[in-house]
């Protein structure tokens, strides 16, 4: 695992390569994470993949996170893996919620990692994050015509309340 100083070195190299794109780094529970600005995420990934010293060639997972109370609300997390050196590195693109019914946008990295095609469709399906340049951005798990982004924290959980016998007077014909 790239340890804390190693992580800082990567951050500095990235900063002078992609100019101030690394917003922050933290190293906890044995794995380093780079918080990056979503505009440069593609160059950072390309650099991390092709740079002779890094070679994080394997993208094991790409998933979305909704940190609702925190300000850069959405996070798109890339779990990179360097197989020969057995090192994992997490890159998180912090996305702001444009508000209203606009959707946050991000460049798609299917050109770099073909495995991201299904992952990105799932993040779009659950969080409404649009990946520019994705070959076939449609909902993958929800029905095609589903409205709403289910895994956002402000989306209601759904399901039905359980009607116990004592509640029947309130709703006499609940079973209709």
């Amino acid at each position: 695992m790239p340890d804390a100083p190693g992580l800082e070195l990567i951050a500095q190299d990235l900063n002078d390569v992609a100019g101030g794109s690394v917003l922050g780094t933290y190293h906890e529970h044995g794995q380093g994470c780079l918080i990056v600005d979503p505009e440069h995420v593609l160059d950072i990934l390309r650099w991390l993949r092709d740079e002779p010293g890094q070679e994080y060639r394997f993208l094991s997972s790409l998933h979305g996170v909704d940190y609702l109370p925190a300000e850069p609300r959405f996070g798109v997390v890339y779990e990179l893996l360097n197989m020969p050196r057995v090192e994992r590195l997490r890159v998180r693109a912090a996305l702001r919620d444009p508000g209203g019914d606009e959707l946050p946008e991000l460049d798609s990295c299917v050109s770099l990692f073909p495995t991201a095609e299904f992952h990105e469709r799932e993040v779009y399906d659950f969080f409404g994050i649009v990946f520019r340049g994705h070959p076939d951005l449609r909902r993958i798990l929800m029905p095609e015509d589903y409205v709403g982004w289910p895994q956002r924290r402000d989306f209601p959980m759904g399901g039905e309340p359980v009607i116990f016998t004592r509640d029947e007077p309130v709703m006499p014909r609940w079973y209709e």
Partner: protein
Amino acid sequence: MRREKLRALAPLEEPAAPTDLRVRQLRARDLLRGDLEGPDLERHVEESVLTTTMQKAIGWGRANSIFPATFGLACCAIEMMSIVSPRYDIARFGAENMRASPRQADLLILSGRVSIKMAPVCRRLYDQMLEPKWVIAMGACSSSGGMFANYAVVQGADKFMPVDIHVPGCPPRAEALVYGFNKLQRMILGNPDPGWRRRYNAAGTEEWAREATGEASKEEIEAYEAARELAATHEAARSQASRGGPT
């Protein structure tokens, strides 16, 4: 010869009311709720006892050669597969012939959680099955949405299709499914297992028992009164029928 003419030549002594199992079940449920009265009730009481020998023969034939449809949804599918395995062998009840297409299947075992994307497919499969057909909702998820009370799972398969047997468990053991299957067979044979109230003669514990604690409103009490008399007549008719043999 036209089928009706043939029927007229040798009437099958079918009672006038539709013999569809589903309609009788719904009527039985209304009876329990106390909103079944007059000629409807008479017909229900008289026909709920299987009368004709021809019906019995057909029921026996159907019950002992049910072809379940291989309809594995989720984890319960693995346990459903194991009822065909050597240990819980369902071939003892004539049902090991799992059919893949709905045309040849009699029984649809909904084994697993029914998501909102899969519900129209389940309903379409149920429609494409040929009568007589039955449905077993295997496991908590297809019976009532189970532990997944959320946006993606239909809270109980009987929201969009009639279900005959609910097998509890998550996943139910293979023996539980075979027991549910036996219950279905007894149901097809025409003498379904009595509800727990009849089996443990707990007749007085219906909803109207709340009237004793005084919270029930006025019209509720009347409704319960009416329902109790109906249940009493039903009880009398059933005991008279069982004593006096098929009427």
